[in-house]
């Protein structure tokens, strides 16, 4: 249901688009942060939000001149407002502002938009400057954290890192939305590595090999895990001649992370096709769980540490139980395929012996390292 301000805001948005076009687009220029920039947020053919923002250099905050959000019934509640708010928070962080947001007179008469207020209340965040049209840095921090959607364990870890003054939560949230590390990757880093702050800050340099190697090994594992996330989520529609992949059409499942075993747990909300296994086709039914122990090892490391991995896998099975809804796998990179045939067979046999299937991702550890190194380098310069 449009608010009384809807028509006015839509008109204002169109004005901004025209101005943006004549001032920048038509001249092939990119606006400075302190110039208004209009954004439209869509999924396929549905518009979820419109916003116009600029960096207010006078007050060092993000100025929002249009903030319209939609809540189409086909999407989960608050989808539009969530997307717009995440974008505003990232923009405030990126511009170098102190994460304060100010809504101008053109946004519901200079108040924090009602949809934003509703969302904040739904998320348990109290906004105290609604009439002044401001979201304070403290409120923005809380919103950023809950909107990013960390698990309870990751939130605790994040708070611990903030209390110990190692990493600011805003930075971690920004990195997730900026694609440096996706949420499941970030959770693996936060919970799985001994010194997550080093990976998040990109502290180690390659010349301090021991620390850099350790960071890279955990960054590599986070990436290997996320290859599996994406593979499981991919739903291909179409026929034998044409395969269709649609935006917002991912398979539904929950992802959690077990730091003790460095394992990813996928709880299927619909049947999931298990990828990268020797069997032709294996489906995990809705309600079932895939428990995949992630071991991003090179050829030499697989051979050297397999006994260790096998013993851990056995303990993991004990811990999760052998119920029929649990499906256990040991995920290695493609390096596994480069092992001598007899070693491969022996590893496969040993794993099957305890009820764990080998799962071989088509990526090599070396390639994962290149990607991980780039992300560590990118992390090094992101604002703290």
């Amino acid at each position, binding site marked *: 249901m449009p608010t009384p301000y809807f028509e006015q805001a839509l008109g204002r948005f169109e004005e901004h688009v025209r101005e943006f076009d004549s001032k920048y687009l038509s001249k092939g220029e990119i606006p400075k942060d302190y110039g208004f920039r209009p954004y439209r947020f869509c999924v396929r053919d549905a518009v979820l939000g419109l916003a116009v923002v600029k960096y207010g250099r006078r*007050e060092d905050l993000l100025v929002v001149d249009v903030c319209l959000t939609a809540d189409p019934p086909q999407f989960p509640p608050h989808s539009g407002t969530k997307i717009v708010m995440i974008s505003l928070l990232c923009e405030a962080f990126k*511009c170098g502002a102190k994460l304060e947001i100010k809504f101008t007179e053109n946004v519901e008469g200079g108040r924090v938009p009602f949809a934003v207020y509703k969302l904040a209340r739904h998320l348990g965040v109290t906004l105290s400057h609604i009439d002044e049209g401001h979201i*304070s840095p403290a409120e923005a921090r809380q919103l950023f954290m809950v909107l990013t959607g960390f698990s309870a364990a990751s939130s605790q870890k994040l708070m611990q890192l903030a209390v110990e003054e190692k990493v600011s939560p805003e930075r971690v949230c920004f990195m997730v939305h900026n694609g440096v590390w996706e949420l499941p990757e970030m959770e693996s880093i936060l919970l799985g590595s001994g010194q997550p702050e080093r990976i998040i800050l990109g502290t180690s340099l390659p010349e*301090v090999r021991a620390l850099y190697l350790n960071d890279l*090994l955990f960054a590599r594992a986070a990436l290997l895990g996320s290859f599996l996330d994406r593979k499981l989520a991919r739903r291909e529609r179409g026929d034998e001649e044409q395969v269709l992949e649609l935006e917002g059409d991912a398979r539904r499942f929950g992802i959690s992370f077990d730091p003790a075993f460095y394992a990813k747990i996928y709880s299927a909300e619909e049947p999931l096709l298990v990828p990268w296994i020797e069997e032709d086709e294996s489906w995990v039914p809705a309600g079932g769980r895939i428990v995949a122990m992630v071991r991003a090892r090179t050829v030499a490391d697989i051979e050297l540490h397999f006994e260790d991995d096998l013993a851990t896998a056995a303990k993991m099975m004990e811990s999760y139980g052998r119920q029929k809804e649990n499906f256990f796998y040991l995920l290695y990179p493609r390096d596994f395929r480069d092992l001598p045939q007899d070693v491969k067979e022996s590893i496969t046999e040993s794993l099957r012996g305890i009820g764990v299937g080998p799962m071989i991702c088509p990526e090599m550890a070396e390639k994962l390292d290149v990607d991980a190194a780039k992300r560590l380098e990118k992390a090094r310069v992101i604002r703290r």
Partner: protein
Amino acid sequence: MSKTSVLLVRLPGEATLAENSELFGLMKEATGVEVKLAKGANLEQERTRYWLLCERIESIAQNLAGLQGQLEELGEEYLRALALMVEAFASYSPSLRLGATYYAADQVQEHVRGFAEVAQKLGLAGLPDVKKRIRFLRKVASEGGVVVELQNPYRLGAVKESGKWGEKFVKLPVSDQITSVGNGSLVDQTRELVALAVESKKKGLSGHLNFSNTRNDLIPQVLREFVYGANGNDPVQIEIVYSDGSEARPFPLFCLRPLAEEAKARIVTLPEVKVGLLSARHPELDSLVAFYWFRNQEISETRAMAQTDEIAYEKSVQLLRRLKKEGGYRISLYQTGFPPAVVGFYRALVDELAADPDSRPWIEVTPCFFLGGEYVQGAPWC
């Protein structure tokens, strides 16, 4: 969380096996690369080379470990201690080689001596893993041999509750105030923002400045007031952030005192030189200036603004030290509007002046800005 174990492998020092001989050759080559890395030359290429060499060294050690190696296993605690040591003593001594994963026969002795010393200084010498490592390396140093460190990550860890941090977290100092800055001139507004950042910093909150979109003449003008205008304020480091989300080194404020009259009189005896900040930006300056401080090709590359700021800072530190050795100069600096270069330059200037304030005056920098169709001089930094 899962655990990482570090395996120390001691291999005989003599080249009795063909693999050993390759191993020693690789170690020698890698040590050569370390020297180049320390100089900062061809960083990207040398880092790749170093990575490949170390990988090969570790792979050979892995193969030989079972056959002829003596082993010692360390836990996660060693890596945590190492991180603290590297943070505090990275540039302690080049022969210390903190964080290396191999030690040739002639490197073990020096390394273990330095490692034990650093551990002692940081109060880490009592940690079991640190003790174990020192004991193992001392034995190798006395008996001879080389050492390679191997890592085994993702080992079974304890399910550790990370505790209830929520209560402490909500007490963290984060501003719950909203901002309202006056409608003064741009210079007043910039001044007000710096003052706000200083206030936040004093309250223990994050105090940062973003000059990405600030007019280039305002940056030195306003910063100068805060660098020299202590007025009872303790020195403070303000975080510098840029609009691409990157963060550079902090900028020191309230850290310089104005020069005494007698010292000011000596400045005029220094040779004068006109310098452009950045080449190839304003060709009309070519005939006016003696040289450019930065080459545009090096500074204006596509990279994060904080990286550019860091490069500008490092180059400026080097150049300023050279100028100081030459006896000092009075520089008229013709500025261009590229904030990371401007901030990097002035941070280097302040750091160099503050590092040895009694050596002043050896430099005077007078910024010149293009305003209203002509170059206007700003206040000098010395």
